[in-house]
C-alpha cells in the first residue's frame, strides 16, 4: 500500500527515471531480494535515511563511504536498467569509473536477469528518494585514482553470467548456492582474502578457502562456515542453522559481531524455504581440516569446579564473571546463554572474537520471532589483560575444547578507547539510552 503510494508520488513529481508503471509484485520481490542482499547494511549511515549512503568503511588505504542508492538525482534516480545492471554485476558506475570492491559485485555477477529487474524496480519505485550527495573517499592521491581498480576488476571479478544450476543436483541446494554465493555475498566476510584483496574463492569449485573464515575484520572473525566440527558448522544441524539465521539464536549459540546486523536486517526477513536452502547448501561444504573430529566433552574441569577446585588458571575469573550464565559445565542454558563447550566460535585458531566478546560483551538483536534482546555485559573495565587472557585460555581448553592459548599482549592489542580498564569508581555503568 505504502509502496504503491510512494511510487505514485514519485511519478507525479517526475523524480522517477522509469515512467513505466511498476508491477507491485515485482517491487515487492525486489524488496525481498534487497533484504537478502542486505543492501541497507552498507548503504545506510548510522542514524541516516535508508539507502542514502554515507557509511564509512575502513580500507587499508583510507576510508571510503557507501553511496546513495535511493531514486533521487543524487542517488541512482537517473540510472537506466542497463546502468544499474552494469554497477551491480560488473562493478562499473554510470560515469564509467570502477566501484571499490567493497561493493561485492563479484558475487552479484551471477544474479539472474529476473532478480536484477526486480531489484531495479524496487530501487526505483519502492525506496524513498533522499537528496543526499555522495561523499568522496578519504583516500589520498595517488591511491585515490580509480583506474587501477579497473585492472583489479579485470583480473579478479568473474564475468557477469547469470547463475546456472549444476545439472541433476538438489534444487534446494541449488537455491542455497545461488543465495550464498550470489546475493547473500557471504564470502565477502567469511572467505579469506588474498594480499590483492580478492576473495580466495567465490564458490566451492574455486577451492577449499571458500567460506573458510576470515582474518579479523573490525575486531571480529567471520567464522568458518564449512563442515569442521572444531571451528566450523560441523556440529550444527540444518534446523539449528535455520533457527540461528532467523532469530539470531539457536539452542546453544547466539549471534554477535557483524553477523548481528545481518540477522536483524536481512536473514530474519527470508522465507523458511530460503533459510532452509542456505542451511542445506552450507552443510554440503566439507571441512577444511581433513583430520577434523567431533567435539568430545570432557568432565574433568566441570567436576573440579563442582568440588570447589578452581586451581586451573583462569578458573576463578571464570567462576566470578562467567559461570552464572555459562555454568561451570560450560553448557550454558538452552536458547538463552550459549554453550562454551564445543562452541566453534571459542575454538577458532585466531581468538580475536572471543577476546573481543569478553572485553566488550554483546547484544543479541531483537527479531520478529524472537524479540528478546539479551546482553552479555562488557568486562573490559573490570578485568586486566592477564585476567582476560587467563579466562579466554580457560574457556579454550576446558570441557573438551582444544584451542591454542593467547597472551595478555593479544588482549592489549584489541583494547580500543571504549574498552579500557577502569578503576571501578565509575563501575562502567552506562545509564544513557
Amino acid at each position: 500500500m505504502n509502496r504503491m503510494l510512494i511510487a505514485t508520488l514519485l511519478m507525479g513529481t517526475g523524480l522517477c527515471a522509469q515512467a513505466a508503471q511498476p508491477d507491485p509484485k515485482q517491487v515487492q520481490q525486489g524488496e525481498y531480494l534487497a533484504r537478502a542482499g542486505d543492501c541497507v547494511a552498507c548503504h545506510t549511515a548510522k542514524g541516516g535515511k535508508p539507502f542514502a549512503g554515507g557509511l564509512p568503511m575502513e580500507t587499508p588505504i583510507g576510508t571510503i563511504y557507501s553511496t546513495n542508492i535511493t531514486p533521487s538525482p543524487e542517488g541512482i534516480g537517473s540510472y537506466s536498467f542497463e546502468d544499474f545492471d552494469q554497477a551491480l554485476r560488473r562493478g562499473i558506475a554510470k560515469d564509467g569509473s570502477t566501484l571499490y570492491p567493497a561493493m561485492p559485485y563479484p558475487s552479484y555477477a551471477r544474479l539472474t536477469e529476473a532478480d536484477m529487474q526486480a531489484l531495479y524496480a524496487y530501487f526505483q519505485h519502492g525506496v524513498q528518494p533522499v537528496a543526499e550527495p555522495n561523499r568522496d573517499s578519504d583516500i589520498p592521491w595517488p591511491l585515490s585514482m580509480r583506474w587501477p581498480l579497473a585492472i583489479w576488476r579485470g583480473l579478479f571479478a568473474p564475468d557477469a553470467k547469470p547463475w546456472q544450476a549444476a545439472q541433476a543436483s538438489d534444487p534446494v541446494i541449488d537455491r542455497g548456492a545461488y543465495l550464498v554465493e550470489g546475493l547473500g555475498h557471504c564470502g565477502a566476510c567469511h572467505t579469506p582474502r588474498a594480499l590483492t584483496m580478492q576473495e580466495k574463492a567465490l564458490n566451492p569449485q574455486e577451492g577449499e578457502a571458500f567460506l573458510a573464515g576470515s582474518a579479523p575484520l573490525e575486531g571480529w572473525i567471520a567464522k568458518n562456515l564449512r563442515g569442521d566440527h572444531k571451528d566450523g558448522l560441523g556440529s550444527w544441524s540444518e534446523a539449528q542453522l535455520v533457527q540461528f539465521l532467523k532469530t539470531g539464536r539457536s539452542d546453544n549459540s547466539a549471534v554477535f559481531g557483524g553477523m548481528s546486523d545481518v540477522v536483524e536486517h536481512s536473514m530474519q526477513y527470508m522465507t523458511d524455504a530460503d533459510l532452509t536452502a542456505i542451511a542445506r547448501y552450507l552443510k554440503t561444504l566439507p571441512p577444511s581440516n581433513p583430520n577434523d573430529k567431533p567435539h568430545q566433552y570432557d568432565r574433568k574441569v566441570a567436576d573440579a569446579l563442582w568440588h570447589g577446585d578452581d586451581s586451573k588458571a583462569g578458573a576463578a575469573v571464570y567462576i566470578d564473571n562467567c559461570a552464572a550464565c555459562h555454568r561451570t559445565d560450560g553448557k550454558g542454558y538452552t536458547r538463552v546463554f550459549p554453550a562454551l563447550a564445543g562452541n566453534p566460535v571459542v575454538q577458532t585458531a585466531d581468538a580475536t572474537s572471543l577476546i573481543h566478546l569478553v572485553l566488550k560483551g554483546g547484544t543479541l538483536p531483537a527479531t520478529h520471532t524472537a524479540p528478546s534482546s539479551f546482553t552479555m555485559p562488557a568486562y573490559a573495565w573490570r578485568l586486566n589483560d592477564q585476567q582476560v587472557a587467563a579466562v579466554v585460555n580457560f574457556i579454550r581448553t576446558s570441557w573438551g575444547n582444544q584451542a591454542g592459548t593467547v597472551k595478555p599482549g593479544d588482549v592489549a592489542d584489541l583494547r580500543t578507547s571504549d574498552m579500557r580498564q577502569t578503576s571501578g569508581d565509575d563501575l562502567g555503568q552506562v545509564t544513557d539510552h
Partner: protein
Amino acid sequence: MANTLKKVDAVIVGFGWTGAIMAKELTEAGLQVVALERGPMQDTYPDGSYPQVIDELTYSVRKKLFLDLSKETVTIRHTVNDVALPYRQLGAFLPGKGVGGAGLHWSGVHFRVDPIELRMRSHYEERYGKSFIPQDMTIQDFGVTYEELEPYFDFAEKVFGTSGQAWTVKGEVVGRGKGGNPYAPDRSNPFPLVSQKNVVSAQLFQQATSALGYHPYNLPSANTSGPYTNPYGAQMGPCNFCGFCSGYVCYMYSKASPNVNILPALRQVPNFELRANAHVLRVNLDDSKQRATGVTYIDAQGRELEQPAELVILAAFQFNNVRLMLLSGIGKPYDPVKNEGVVGRNFAYQNMGTVKAFFDKDVHTNNFIGAGGNGVAIDDFNADNFDHGPHGFVGGSPMWVNQAGSRPIAGVANPPGTPAWGSAWKKATADYYTHQLSMDAHGAHQSYRGNYLDLDPTYRDAYGLPLLRMTFDWQDNDIRMNQFMVDKLSKIAQAMNPKSIAVLGKQVKEHFNTASYQTTHLNGGAIMGTDPATSALNRYLQCWDVHNVFVPGASAFPQGLGYNPTGLVAALTYWSARAIREQYLKNPGPLVAA
C-alpha cells in the same frame, strides 16, 4: 498553553505491569497506543548489568529504583483529627519509578487469589452472620468471581513464566506429595514451569509444618526454574538464587518484569510508542465531565503537552491512580464523615508478622542465597481456611519461609538481646549469619471507614499540585489477627528446635509506623464493585462516571489479600483488556448500567 499532539486511540499512564499488559492487548486489537511513563527508560541492560547491579548501597539503601521524593511524595496521618506530614524518607512502602515500575523491582511471588477473598463481605456474612463484621469495616465484593478470572490467571502465568506446582488441574489432583497446595482453587493448566528448588530453610519449614499437621506447598514464583519462552516470544533465563530480587533489576533475565516479558514484543509492533520521562498531570475531560479527551503531561524538556486519546488507561502505582482521578475530577471524592463518595475509599494495606529462628552451627541455612518468589508456605490459616468464629477477627494469612537472600548491609539479624554494635554483635553475627531463618505471616488487611485517601490541603508537589494524603492506622481487628498469626508462626518455629527465636508482631494499640518496612502492597482507593455508590469502577475496571477511562491495578482491590497482589493485578488487567477488546471497542459506552 499546552501543545496538542496528534490524537491516538489509547493513552496509557504508567508503564509497569498493568500498563504493559494493556499496551500489548490494545496493540493486538489494532489500536494506536502511546504509553507515558514518568520515570526514566530502564532495562536489564544496562540498569541490571552484572556485577554492578549487585550493589546493596545503591539499590536498597539509596533506593535507586524507587520514587523520587524530591519531586513528589504522599502525606500521612493516623486519623482525621491529625495533621498529615510528608513522607520524606522511604520506609514502610517503596513505590517504583521508571519503565517497568514496581514490576521491575518486585520479588516475584506470583499467586492467584483465594476465591472467597473476591467476595469477602458476602462470604463472611453467609458463614458468620452480618454482625461478625465490625461496624466500621468496609470490606466489599470485587464483583468478579474466580471462575471468571481463571483464564486470565492462566494466561498471566504463561506470560510471567511462573514456576510452581498445581494441586488440581481441571478437577484432577496432580500435586499431592509434590508441593501442591490443597487449599488452592482449581486450575485449567499446570504452571508453565516446575517449582524452583527449595533452600534449606524452606525445607526446615516444610518439615516443621508437616509435623504439626499443616499442608506445606511450594510458593508460586515468577523467578524461573529454568529457561523459558512466553507466548509473546519473550525469553527468560534461569534463576540462580543470587539473592538480589526485591529492589533490583534481575541480571539473569529470570525474574518476570514488564521489561523482560512484554516490552520486547511491543518493540516489534509499529502501533506502540513508549515515552519515558513523561509526567502526566491530569486526565482532561470534556464539558459533560463524562468523557475523557486525553491527558496533559510534562515531557523531559519540561514542556507541557496534551496527548488526545479516545481511551485513557490509568496504569500508575496504586495511589497515583487515585491521585490522578482526584486531580482530574473523575468520580466523587470519598468523605469518611458522611461515608459518601467513592474515590479514595477502602484504602488498605498488608498486615505482616515475622518470626526468626536462630540455630546452632550444625544447621546451615546459607541464607545469603535466595530468590524473591521462592519458598515453602502453608495456607492453613489463610483466607477462610479455618473457622474464624471462635477467634472473632476477619481475615487470614499465608505463612512461609521466603528466603530472598540476606544481603551484607541489611541482611544481618541476631538473636534477641544481642547488642546492636561492638564485639558482642560481631561474635553473634559470626555465630548466626548462616544459621538462621525468617518466616512471615503475610497477612490480609481489611478496609475501614477511617482509612482513606484524599488530596492534602497544604503540601504540593514539584509541579504545584496537591500531594495525596493518606489517613491510615491499624485497627483492633488487624492487631488481633496479627497476634493470632504470629502465635502460630512461633509454634512452627519452636517445632524446629532452634536455640532462640525473635518475634516481630503488632502490639495492642500499636500505630502505623512509616519508618518500618512492611510491604509495598497498597490497595484500594479506586475500587471495583457492583454499586456506583460504593465503588469508583465497575467490574471491568471502567470508571462508572467517565466511560472511556479504565483504571487497572491494586487500586481496584476493595481490601488487601492474604496473598501478594501482583497475580490478581495481572489477571484483572487481562480481564479488563478483554472487555475493552470484545465489548467496549465495538460499542463505546458503559459496560455495566449504573
